[in-house]
């Protein structure tokens, strides 16, 4: 790779972000713990009857992962904004959307992927039927990148604000509604013995669309909030 070229810049950014995550690897467990605790709260609130838990297990796991992802979103740009490297990214001659796509990718790898690995275990805690487990993991594999991409656009709008947590939730959660409906809908359909392919395909279509559009929107939003 030629030094100074766009691929080299992306590779350097990927290496830097992964190194940063590795140096603070303890932080990576926080979303996992959060999701585990949220899931553990539901039997305490609703009662331990396996029948009832089995019925709502997929939905609870989905919502718990969505909330964990929402809390993790805040770290996407925060440290980069604080040490000024985010402004350097905006000023760099390489396409900002591409660089941001790299950042979002690393963020998804380090926060969402461990959650997906944990998801079958969470399902087991709630007596999720075995045949739904596969659909749940596939739905999450399609849905969590969408959550990261859409969330990144909203994070870019609130970057630099103090105490943006509640506001970020207000901006992001309405946009998450369709993803939740299709993702949890696929699991519920599988649990009822119905075909679950259609909602998964819709999720995949939305993911393709978001992969193209969201980095561009994220770049535009970042330029607005760092102007």
């Amino acid at each position, binding site marked *: 790779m030629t030094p100074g070229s766009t691929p080299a810049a992306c590779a350097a950014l990927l290496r830097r972000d992964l190194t940063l995550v590795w140096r603070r690897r303890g932080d990576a467990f926080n979303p996992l713990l959060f999701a585990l605790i949220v899931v553990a709260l539901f039997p305490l609130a609703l009662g331990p009857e396996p029948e009832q838990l089995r019925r709502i297990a997929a939905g609870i796991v989905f919502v718990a992962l969505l909330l964990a992802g929402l809390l993790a979103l805040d770290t996407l740009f925060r440290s980069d904004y604080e040490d000024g490297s985010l402004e350097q990214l905006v000023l760099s001659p390489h396409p900002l959307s591409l660089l941001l796509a790299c950042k979002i990718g690393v963020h998804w790898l380090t926060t969402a992927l461990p959650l997906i690995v944990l998801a079958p275990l969470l399902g087991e805690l709630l007596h999720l039927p075995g045949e739904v487990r596969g659909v749940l993991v596939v739905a999450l594999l399609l849905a969590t990148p969408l959550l990261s991409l859409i969330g990144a*656009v*909203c994070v870019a*709008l*609130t970057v630099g*604000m103090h105490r*943006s947590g509640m*506001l970020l939730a*207000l*901006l992001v*959660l*309405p*946009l998450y*509604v*369709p993803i939740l*409906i*299709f993702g949890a*809908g696929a699991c519920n359909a599988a649990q009822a013995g119905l075909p679950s392919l259609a909602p998964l395909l*819709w999720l995949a279509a*939305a993911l393709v669309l978001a992969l193209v559009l969201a980095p561009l*929107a994220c770049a*535009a*939003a970042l330029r*607005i*909030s760092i*102007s």
Partner: protein
Amino acid sequence: MNILLLWFHKLGSPPTFYRLAGLLLPWCYGIGLVLGLVALYGGLVLAPRDYQQGDAYRIIFVHVPTAWMSLFAYAFMAANAFIALVWHIKLSEILAIASAPIGAAFTLIALVTGALWGKPMWGTWWTWDARLTSELVLLFLYLGVIGLNAAIEDRRQAARAAGFLALVGIVNLPIVHFSVNWWNTLHQGSTVRLMGPSKIDAAMVWPLLLMALATHIWFFGSVLMRARIALLQLEGGKDWVRRVALDEGAGND
């Protein structure tokens, strides 16, 4: 320069807009109020009872126009946000932000009147039906735009960020509508159609359409009012604002 273009550019300048909006404002409120009262009289007194729903259906004359307005206001906000982001027109930023709270109010009225209507007809205040849910999501989108606008210190940057969010929302809105439709539907289908015959009696249609017209005119009146105030705040230190303040101060003495 072309006359139309010149007029357009003049309209975009804050002092001209401020003056013109001041002239239009009483007319918007006046006509909106009169038409609204006529439509209410037509709907509550003149229109016949429904054979199935009795008199309870009459809330339609508030519920349906406000529900239409909740979508219209969002479209108006998003169109202005688009103009503001592409051509950096200050006035469009102000119009977009001014329409957000009004649209949110219409959405809230539509939700509340819908709940009041749902209690006698469906036997429940709220149900997780497709249309109700997407209207609720619409309210959250409005609140997000208002919240983001309020959270940023710099007024113009706030307007641009909130406008961008409104645009993201309008891409998402059809998807939300479609997905919740797929998810669950109880709400009755559309009874008023632009194309083809409506499934509603003519004596019920005219108050409904008149009320829709009245709410539109009232909406523009409210937008102009809010935009005038926002302009004064934004341009606080400029000469024309000082002149306006001096003139109105002199008028009051």
